[in-house]
């Protein structure tokens, strides 16, 4: 395909995927705001006042980047996994598979749409947080970089999940049993300096810790590990997952007989 044809194919897929989550905004964009508002209300106002500051910040200030990351991860992951799996389920994915659209274009189309949803959710939650507390973004470039790259990473993970999924249950297993525990144990609600050495050790093996840390640095200028390490971990994971996605699509795993 020529560059123009490739761009048309990409834009078709990307805009179709964006239209899908924007059309059902009540299901895709509002629930994370509701959930995070409750967190802000309960942990910020009801309980937060009774808890000591963490590294010089109130619990709510400290929690905000982590809560954003939790929703961003979930939104971008579910956007791609559910959309791709549903296309498989109703076989409309064949429209793409028989076309000359390359596997790179397919990955970019799904992943960028998932990333956009992740970024929108992140920005909406940050805006919600501003209603409850006086918080600002100290490093805007880093803020958007971490939001976008985290969304892209978990969109890729969602795509891999959807490729392997054979039934609807298969796309909810990973978020429930892997992503949620990793998110809660990734330093969203606590500082690694406040927990035991053993737990701190395990937390440092959790990739979500580095994503939360990067976003926390962009908002609070607070970092529990080097932001450069966060950047390296993210880049490594993105490249790895991209290669896995591409190889799976090339082989037609879960798509072709």
């Amino acid at each position, binding site marked *: 395909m020529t560059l123009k*044809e490739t761009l048309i194919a990409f*834009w*078709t897929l990307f805009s*179709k995927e964006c239209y899908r989550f924007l059309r059902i905004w009540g299901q895709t964009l509002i629930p994370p705001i509701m959930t995070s508002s409750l967190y802000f209300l309960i942990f910020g106002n009801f309980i937060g006042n009774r808890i000591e500051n963490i590294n010089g910040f109130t619990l709510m200030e400290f929690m905000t980047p982590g809560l954003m990351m939790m929703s961003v991860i979930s939104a971008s992951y579910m956007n791609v996994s559910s959309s791709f799996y549903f296309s498989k389920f109703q076989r*409309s994915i064949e*429209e793409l598979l028989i076309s*000359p659209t390359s596997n790179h274009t397919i990955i970019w189309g799904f992943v960028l749409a998932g990333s956009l949803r992740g970024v929108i959710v992140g920005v909406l939650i940050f805006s919600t947080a501003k209603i409850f507390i006086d918080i600002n973004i100290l490093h805007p470039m880093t803020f958007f970089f971490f939001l976008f790259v985290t969304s892209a990473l978990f969109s890729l993970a969602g795509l891999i999940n959807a490729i392997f999924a054979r039934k609807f249950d298969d796309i909810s297993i990973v978020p429930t049993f892997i992503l949620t525990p990793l998110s809660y144990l990734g330093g969203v609600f606590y500082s690694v300096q406040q927990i035991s050495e053993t737990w701190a050790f395990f937390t440092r093996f959790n990739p979500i810790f580095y994503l939360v840390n990067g976003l926390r640095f962009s908002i609070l200028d607070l970092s529990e590990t080097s932001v450069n390490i966060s950047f390296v971990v993210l880049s490594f994971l993105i490249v790895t997952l991209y290669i896995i996605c591409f190889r799976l699509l090339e082989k037609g795993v879960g798509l072709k007989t």
Partner: protein
Amino acid sequence: MYAIELSHVSKKYKSQTYALKDVSLKVEEGDFFAFLGPNGAGKSTTIGIISSLVVKTAGQVKIGGYDLDEDPIKAKKCLGLVPQEFNLNVFESCLAVLINQAGYYGVAKSVAYERAEKYLNLLMLWSERNHQVRTLSGGMKRRLMIARALIHNPPILILDEPTAGVDVELRKLIWNFLEGLNRDEKKTIILTTHYLEEVERLCHHVAIINKGKLVSTGSLAELVNQLPGQSYILSLEEVLNNPTKEKLKTLSYEIKFLEEKAIEVNLLKHLSLSDLFKDLGQLDLKVKSMREKENQIEQAFLHMTKEGYLS
């Protein structure tokens, strides 16, 4: 150059069973080609391999002269596919289905819109253009899939049972539409169907596949010529008595006595109807009416898909 060329194509599943075994097939450009076979014969697998939805185990596939493995983009652009099962996104409108499909082939939206208007009108779906697919009837979905397969203007169109579950009136609309595409736009059309009247009406050449192997290919006339004979049902003017029946048994035809006044005669290829009427005349038997027992294509199909045909 052939529109479609399969060379020694095989498909073996992990269970070691062959869905296709060493199938070689050529379809001329501009042909209207029927691909026939009983259920599970390998028709859909062949179509799946051509449309790259099924991974072949061996062999080569060329579409419009382009090798599907070496030049997949050009090969895929030559092909439009109407699958057997509905594979539409049920939450999209008819127009969105077509414009998105065109987009995947790199066709600009303005061009896609013009083509969508043309094909939706021809297939009598224009009034449904903004309706979601889930609100359409089965026949409408079938026509929408035909329009979708044509939206990138491919020279080759493959239809896997396009008239399955479609009423008579609509079937004729689809037949006329496909005939027009083949005649006026010179599109090569490959069709699988269980309706042999459809083959007789539309197709120029036929291939028959059974148990993953190609058992015959050629023009309709060539196919019929491969039949060992032709069966007719004859209604006689008078009731057959036993002596006449005995005499009939001595003739060189396979005769079955159906009713008091009806017989079935299997006329072998080297014998003519004149011979039959002459012999019946000598026995003072008058034929009131006569009809073919089965359509000739149907007979050829049944004959060639019979157990042990190739051996």
